């Protein structure tokens, strides 16, 4: 099946984007990206710390995997712009997840500063992915300002609470003519699957994979679940009903006919409220 998400000319087959934070080692992270066949991975930028491991994370990102730099650490639009420019100078390409956070407890994004950063960076030619609190009105402005996709959060970063914003993400999927990529809070493959079933273009998962007991296996699980959800979306999901509907035929039962007034119908009738 030909089913690609196309962003800025890149055709993306695997709709599970993976964040590279919190893995116990870059080697395990690499293995997770490989096993999940990830095509997009996020990376952060920080001041060098001479005391830390000398490994270069870029050596552990598979060739075929597109890097998207996040602006984590930015508290306003200016800081986000500064990080984006540094990332580009560092040969990390021009895909930027704009993340502007002023709230230390719930790590909820600042939609207004994020919008400002989108305006600046889109004009400079960056491919921008704003991470935001779900808000249709501001998402429309993000689109007008040149965002390439919208990344609403499912629940607070790293909380593993799932898609607590479902109603509003569905509205965004229906109303915004850009890929909607759920980012943050997804804790289980079933939740990622659900995002895809309602029509999201992709999901970004980090914590739930990186801190599981077996991150490589969990990366594969998320990857399969995202694919399953996408397939289901494309297959046409039947709606839920109030009542039951037999899956086996309702005729040809092997049973003796019982005299009227003695069978099931009248029985259950007698318990129904008048």
């Amino acid at each position, binding site marked *: 099946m030909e089913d690609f998400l196309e962003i800025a000319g890149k055709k993306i087959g695997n709709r599970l984007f993976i*964040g*590279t934070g919190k893995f116990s080692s870059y080697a395990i992270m690499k293995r997770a990206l490989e096993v999940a066949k990830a095509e997009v991975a*996020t*990376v952060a930028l920080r*001041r060098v710390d001479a005391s830390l491991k*000398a490994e*270069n994370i870029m050596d552990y990102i598979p060739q075929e995997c597109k890097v998207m730099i996040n602006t984590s650490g930015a508290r306003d639009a200016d800081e986000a712009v500064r990080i984006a420019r540094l990332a580009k100078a560092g040969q*990390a390409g021009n895909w930027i997840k704009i993340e502007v956070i002023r709230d230390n407890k719930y790590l909820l994004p600042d939609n207004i500063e994020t919008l400002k950063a989108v305006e600046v960076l889109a004009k400079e030619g960056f491919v921008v992915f704003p991470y935001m609190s779900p808000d249709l009105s501001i998402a429309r402005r993000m689109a007008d300002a040149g965002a390439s996709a919208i990344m609403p959060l499912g629940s607070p970063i790293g909380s593993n609470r799932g898609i607590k914003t479902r109603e509003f993400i569905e509205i965004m999927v229906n109303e915004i003519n850009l890929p909607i990529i759920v980012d943050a809070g997804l804790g289980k493959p079933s939740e990622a699957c659900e995002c895809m079933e309602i029509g999201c273009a992709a999901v970004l998962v980090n914590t739930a994979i990186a801190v599981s007991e077996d991150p490589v296996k969990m990366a594969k699980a998320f990857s399969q679940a995202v694919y399953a959800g996408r397939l289901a979306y494309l297959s046409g999901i039947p709606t839920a009903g109030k009542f039951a509907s037999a899956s086996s035929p309702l005729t040809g039962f092997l049973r003796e006919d019982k005299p009227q007034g003695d069978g099931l119908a009248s029985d259950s009738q007698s318990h129904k409220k008048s």
Partner: protein
Amino acid sequence: MLININGKPEEVEIKLNLVELILAKGLSVERVVIEHNLRIVPKEEWIDTRLQENDKVEIVSFVGGG
């Protein structure tokens, strides 16, 4: 000579250029990006960029993040 590196004051040799600075700190030229007095310096200019007293230098690199 006192300069500010990554938010902290640090004593370095006078007239150090950026390549020398990176090597002196035991870092790899390939994997870092330098901002000198708020201007990002392309790698080809590093050798000609000499530090002055009170300069502000940011040396950053990529790490895992979500």
